[in-house]
């Protein structure tokens, strides 16, 4: 799971252009949106693409995204349980 969390952080930094941010700067429990990393709705679309492209998970209900994308921890948990690749 720790390896997966690190991998997600690396993908986030690259896909979302989080310049000047390293894996160490993102805590597993940090909120990804709003007061946390401050991601926006476009970033949410990028996260959905990462889930689909890299882990074979297709999100069909936007309500799911709200829970899954709370933090690195929740993302990693969901990915480990639902990944198809």
């Amino acid at each position, binding site marked *: 799971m720790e390896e997966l969390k690190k991998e997600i952080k690396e993908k986030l930094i690259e*896909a*979302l*252009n*989080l*310049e000047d941010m390293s894996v160490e700067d993102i805590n597993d429990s940090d909120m990804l949106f709003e007061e946390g990393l*401050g991601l926006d709705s*476009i*970033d949410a*679309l*990028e996260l959905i*693409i990462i889930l*689909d*492209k890299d882990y074979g998970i297709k999100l069909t209900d936007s309500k799911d995204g709200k829970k899954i994308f709370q933090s690195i921890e929740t993302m990693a948990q969901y990915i480990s349980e639902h990944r198809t690749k």
Partner: protein
Amino acid sequence: MKNSIVSYCNIKNNQVFLNGEKIFHDEEASEFLEFIKKAYKHFELDYPKFYKMDSLCKLAMVGGSVLLNQLDEVDSEMALVFSNKSSCIDIDRIHQASISENEGYASPANFVYTLPNIALGEISIKYKLRSENSFFIFEDFNPSFLVDYTTSLINLNKAEQVLCGWIEVFENEYNAFLFIAKEAEGLTLNKENLLKLI
């Protein structure tokens, strides 16, 4: 009173000028994106969204900010009139490549910048402008058009001030010339002066 160019900014060849005076340069940056990031940091623009922008928006944001940050107060009615040659083809190509190379997945982050007037929107958001804005595409810098359009906005009371100019970027080739025009004493807003300043 006549319409004048009250301040102007040039960004080219790894240098930033304000009213003709060099205010930043970086000899080491070999690519546009490296240079513009250094300029962003140098001017402490503090707008994290900058990193997600395409090259055109980054150039417009730095140029616009250099001019607007020197003002005591930014007029929320200040109009924006930009122009260039390459529109947003730079990011369009990157967007196209990302679809081709990425198993058909388009990047939303790239997609939001596939219009040239997004550059105007970003400046409007940062400086809370609620004003007229237009982005024109010309084969070359067209000072006559910019003078006519800006003069018309001011004379018809559509705006008291206009942030106007040329903001061209394609891969590592770039040139920005932005100026603020308004009714004031100073350098007359005309074609000849714009050609001298660009």
